[in-house]
């Protein structure tokens, strides 16, 4: 592996690890469940694809890269599905239903939009 390739692998791995560690810390520090849920996304996208790029740079096209592509795709689609399913579970757990209720209060919605929606 050339010097440039080694540098690229180092940088990609550093980015992946730093992003993952920051997201783990944010998971702990966020107060709200929905805020917390968002921090799975950078790990399964930015960090995972940085690792994929690092493996590709180091190994070239081969068994390792193909398996890493499969893992990255699984993690990518897993995050979207799991985030939705977990948020849905929380909503059903709290409200008893999943469907939208026109009379339901949505925090943060401007008053004129809220009154228009409830009309």
């Amino acid at each position, binding site marked *: 592996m050339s010097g440039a390739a080694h540098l690229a692998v180092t940088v990609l791995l550093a980015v992946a690890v730093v992003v993952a*560690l920051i997201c*783990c810390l944010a998971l*702990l520090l966020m107060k709200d469940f929905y805020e917390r*849920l968002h921090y799975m996304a950078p790990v399964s996208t930015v960090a995972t694809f940085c*690792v994929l790029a690092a*493996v590709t740079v180091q190994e070239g096209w081969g068994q390792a890269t193909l398996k890493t592509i499969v893992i990255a795709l699984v*993690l990518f689609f*897993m995050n979207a599905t799991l985030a939705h399913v*977990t948020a849905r*579970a929380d909503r059903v757990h709290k409200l008893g239903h999943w469907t939208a209720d026109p009379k339901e209060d949505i925090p943060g919605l401007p008053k004129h939009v809220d009154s228009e929606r409830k009309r």
Partner: protein
Amino acid sequence: MNLWLLAAAALMFGLIPCGIVVFTRDAINRLVGLEMAGLIETLVLLFLAQGLNNPNFYDLALAMALLTFGGGLVFARFLERWL
């Protein structure tokens, strides 16, 4: 110790916040902590496979990713229906 093993060791520290969330928060937040821990563990197994230069170990990371997915779905369904 090569670069990949060093990255795996550093990434293991990410499990500490996940563990704190899992052990101290309510059920739905514990599920988020568990899912994040699964993601981190998958990446750690990937780093170990590359660091130890054994392509067979990639299957462990793939199995971990798939089991995290299945486990997350089952737990979310369980929370939704029975808790």
